[in-house]
Structure formats: C-alpha cells, structure tokens
C-alpha cells in the first residue's frame, strides 16, 4: 500500500492544495509585518474566487478572470485598509465583518447573476505551464517522471506563489524597502520620525495582502476547480493565518508551513481511497488539516514573536 500512497502525484497534489493557503499566508505576513492584523483572508479569497469566475465566464478568458479576481479582492481589502489604517477601527472586527460581507455578497450575487444558489457554470481551467513528455521504461524514466510531476507540472499561479515567497523573503530582510516595511510594524513612531509615511506604507501592505488573497481565490476557481461554489474557501483563509504564525511572519516560512497543511490534505484525500483497508470514518480524515493547525499552534506559538506594534492603529497626531 505504501507504494500506492507515496507517489509523485501525492507531492504534486500537496503543492497544489497548499498554494491557495500559501498565497494568502505570504500576503498576510507582509500585512502583519507592517503592523496591520488581517484575519479577512478567508473573505478576500472567496471574493477573489467569485469575481474571477464571473469575469472569466463573461469574457471567456480565464486570464482576464485572474485580473477580475485580484480587482475584487483589492476592493474589499481597501475597506479593511480604510477602517484599520485611517479610522483606527478594531482590526479583528473589521476582518470579521469582511469575512461575513464576502460570504453574503458572493451568495447574493450568485443568485442575482446565475439565478440559483450553489455552484456556477464552469470554465476551461488554466493549464500547466510546461508540458514535457514522460513515459518509457527504466530507472531514468522513473526519475524523470518524479521530477516532472513534483516540479514541472504546475499552473502559473502556483509558480508565482513560490516566486513571491522567495522574492518577498529576500526583499523583506535584504532591502531598504523591507527594512522600512518592517519598521512600520515594530515602531511606527520611529518610522514616522525618519520620514516614512506610515499610513501609506500600511495601506500598501493591506492591499498586497488583498492581491495575494485574490490570486489564491483565482487559483482555486480558475486553475483547480473550474467553477465557483458558495463558501468554497472552507476555512483556508484561517489556516493561512495559522500558517503565517507557524512561519513566524516570514513569507518563506508561511509558504513552508502551508506546504505542511497541503501535504496533510493530500494525504487524507489519498487515504480516503483506501477506506476499505483503513476503517476510519471520512469525517476524521476531513478534520485532519484543522487538527494539524491546532497541534502546530500548540507547539509553536509560545516561541513565535509577533511584530511589536501589531494591531495598534497609528495616528500621526500621536
């Protein structure tokens, strides 16, 4: 059974399942490094998934759909930015409001546009970037199959997620821009004193998080499923939050933590196929990613240190 479970497809599926979580987690770490708490990824992802799907269905182009997804998420992210950066609102409540608003808005528009609740029509999903031939016999062909499946079988947004995680980790810790962004979350008053525009910087960070969550939604609908279902994000935004903390507010760390969840999810999906050998009810497989989140938090949170000024509204007047 081991050989049937541990296949190259298992790892590829782990990466694919991790991608929406990872994109949101990478975006959130930028947002929280700048000192703004963002628990709205669940809603932003849902909005992205929906607006991406609608745009794709209307234009017939999945690529325009990606733009639509990002636009939708950015609009809702600016609500969060306005409330938490300009108006000093409670950022957790604002995030919750956006999550509920996203669920309501997508549900309402779903019924208004498509005339029924549930699932939309489907579109042709965006295909993998590369298409190399595989097959044949012998050890070389097997190694090539592993390489091709685990590294070269993905759709564009999946690669973008990997790139973003690496690039942003470098930028956050090795560039002047990164130092400035982090200063917003550690000591905004000092940042202001040396002439950094705190409000502008935080706006940018919240929008960056919205951009990434929108892409996460686009990945779900336009690359993976091909249609939109109400509430389809199913807690991924919250898992991304846990991944971000597990990754210690570092984009790359958040990406790796998401891979762990993706792997747990891929494994449970795979194991469900063997339900006549492993006699465990499906519900226990389904709860695995959530359980893992709790275990990870129980093990790591005590040692993870959040940005100092996180969640505190900043006013130039002092």
């Amino acid at each position: 059974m081991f050989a049937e479970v541990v296949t190259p497809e298992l790892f590829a599926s782990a990466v694919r399942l991790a991608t929406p979580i990872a994109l949101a987690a990478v975006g959130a770490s930028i947002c929280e490094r700048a000192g703004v708490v963002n628990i709205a990824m669940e809603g932003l992802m849902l909005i992205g998934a929906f607006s991406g799907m609608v745009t794709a269905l209307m234009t017939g182009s999945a690529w325009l759909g990606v733009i639509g997804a990002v636009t939708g998420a950015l609009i809702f992210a600016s609500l969060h930015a306005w409330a938490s950066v300009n108006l000093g609102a409670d950022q957790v409540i604002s995030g919750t409001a956006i999550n509920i608003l996203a669920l309501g808005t997508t549900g309402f528009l779903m019924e208004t546009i498509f005339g029924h609740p549930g699932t939309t029509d489907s579109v042709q999903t965006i295909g993998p970037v590369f298409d190399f031939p595989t097959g044949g016999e012998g050890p070389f062909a097997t190694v090539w199959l592993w390489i091709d499946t685990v590294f070269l079988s993905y759709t564009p947004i999946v690669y973008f997620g990997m790139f973003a995680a690496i690039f942003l980790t470098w930028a956050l810790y090795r560039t002047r821009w990164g130092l400035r962004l982090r200063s917003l979350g550690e000591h905004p008053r000092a940042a202001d004193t040396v002439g950094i525009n705190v409000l502008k910087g935080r706006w940018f960070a919240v929008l960056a998080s919205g951009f990434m969550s929108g892409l996460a939604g686009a990945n779900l609908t336009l690359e993976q499923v091909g249609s939109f279902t109400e509430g389809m994000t199913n807690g991924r935004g919250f898992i991304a939050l846990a991944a971000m903390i597990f990754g210690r507010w570092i984009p790359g760390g958040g990406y790796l933590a998401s891979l762990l969840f993706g792997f747990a999810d891929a494994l449970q999906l795979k194991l469900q196929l063997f339900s006549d050998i492993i006699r465990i009810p499906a519900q226990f497989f389904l709860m695995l990613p959530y359980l893992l989140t709790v275990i990870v938090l129980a093990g790591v949170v005590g040692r993870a240190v959040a940005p100092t000024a996180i969640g505190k509204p900043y006013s130039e007047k002092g």
Partner: protein
Amino acid sequence: MPEQVIDDSPEHRAQEAERRFALEQERIRRLIRVATPFISVAIAILLGSVVIALSGKDPLLAFGAMFSGAFGGTRQIGETLLRATPLIFTGLAVAYGFRSGLFNIGAEGQLFLGGIAAAFVGVMLAGYPWMISVPLVLLAAALAGAAWAFIPALMKARIGAHEVITTMMFSYIGRYVVSWIIAGPFKDKGQIPQTPELPETSQLPRLSDVFTFIEPNRAHLGIVLGIVLAVVVWWVLKYTVLGYEARAVGFNPTAAQTGGISVSMTTVKSLCISGALAGLAGAVEVMGVHHRMFDQFSSGFGFTGIAVALLAKNNPIGVIAAAILFGSLSAGAGTMQLEAGVSQKVISVIQGTIIFLVGAEAIVSWAVKRIRSMKEATDVR
C-alpha cells in the same frame, strides 16, 4: 464668605470657551457612541436598498415584504421570536467573551456540540418527567459547549495561542465530529443521517401550547429562557466577582494581573462560560424546534451571534434587542424572496455592513462630522 470674584480677563474667557468646547466635544462623542448601533443599522439597510436597486429589484417592495413577513401577524411574530431565540444565546456567548477580551469566533462549533449533547441526553432520559429531563438536557448541552471551548481556552491561557484561530479550528473539528455521530453511532433508523426524535418530556413546548390564549405559532419557551439568561448574564457581569474579574481582564489584563486577578484563570473561565452559552443555543434549537439533531440544524447562528453581540455593544440586555432585529431579518427574508424576488442572502450583506460599521465606530463619527462640517460650510455661505 469670600466675595465671588468674576474674572473678566480675556485669558479667562478664552479658557472658559475652550472648556465649553471640550465639554461640547465630549457630549457629541458620547452621543455618537450611543447612536452608533442605530446609525449602523440605518446605513446598512440603506446600503442593502442600494444593492437591491442595483440588482434591478424594488427596495421598498422588498423591505415592505420583509417587514410584513417578520411582524405582520401572530404567526409572523412567532417566527421572528423563533429565529431570535438561538441568536440570544449565541449573542450572549460572544458578548461574554468580548467583555473578557476574548473573541469567540467558534461559537458555531460549540453550538453543534451542545446540540448533539442535548439530542443524546434527551433521548437517554426518555421516561423521566420533564422536571428532571429538561434541566439535565440543558446542563449537558452547556457542559458540552464549555468542554469544546476548554482546549482553546487552555491554549490561550498557557501559550497565548490566539483564540480566533483555535476556536475557529475547533469549530470545524466539532462539526465533523458531530456529523460523524449523526451519521454513525447515534443515527436514527432509516436512510437520513439524523438522531432519533426527542421524547416529549425533553422538548421545549410552544408558547401557544403553554399560554392557550396566544394564537398558534412556532415560537417556543426557549425565548423566555433566553431573556431570563440575558438578565442573569447581565447580573453576573455587573454584581459578581466572576463578572468583575472578567471585565477587569477584558479592560486591561496587565492592570488586572497587578491587581491580583489571575489572567489565565479568568481567560479559561470566561471562554468556557462563553462556550456553555453557545452550547445552550444548540440545545434550545434541538429541544424547541427540530426535536432531533442533523447536519443542517443551524443556519450559522454562531456567526450571526458575533453580529448580535457587536450590535448590542456586548450589553446582555442589548443582545435581546439585537437578536430580535436579526431574527426579524431572517424571518422576513423568505417573504422578501417570495414577493420581491430578492435573494435572501442580502441579509448577510446587511449583517456584514452592521458589523463593519459598529466595529469601525470611527466611520460613523467620521460621517457625522462630515455632515456637520458640510452643514457649517453651507451655513457660512
């Protein structure tokens, strides 16, 4: 008696004016704080109307239908109260958490655990008189809800794991556990995954069955329980040590700790009480409405509870009013969909807007100031 000196110097007059200005500002701030929930609801309904109008439907017709569906007669009012009932409990649950500085976003999971506990104990106690079974069923549900909040509470107290993530994750886990119990070990005979029906002695009777002068409607005794509980929670928060400690920790944990209150102990207690209240919400739904447990027995009462608590500004008595408002939205939504052709989901948009506005109180005061300054500008002209 010293002579009253009337200081007439320009400095003093300036000071006096400044003081009066500050008082005036404070008065406006207080007014805004009190008015925020009302203004928020008004803005949210206005925004809902715009959304309805944009979708090509008539907002006046829609809200008219909604109103008649919620308050148009005894049956409709009963329906509003029926839907308000679980929201009083979940609203109290979330509000109690907030008062203690905890955001219990996982009330939905605790509600499911409470529901299944009620369904199980209710069936087990068949044959006992209601005086024994009803209290025991409620107790079981409260304990189940509290138990489901206990681990997140412990994680918060011990290692500082944020309760927004842990209670949310436990909510998902709880729903899967309950779904398994319903479909597996505690499934009723037949194909449908649901638990066996509660014996009549474990049910909460309808108001119209108890008070026969009321015309028949679906509202049940749970609403009375909810109102009584709201008063109890108010009393606990205001007059007991338990409530004092909860509020002190919610207000300023560092100061509370310095003052000799154990923050971690209070956190555990408060989140468990919050969980117990959410568990009771599940119990009243099972005992008063469905008389059994199944997967879709809650239409997001745990999440709507957040909106209820925020709108009530975490005041237990305010929770009753906020719950009835949301209950009426939910009861009227069906009529609205039927008569005006507007999707029921618009009420989630309204709820989300209300939370956003109440949470960002500054938006309301910003709007008020904008309107004032606009008025001043036109006055000058």
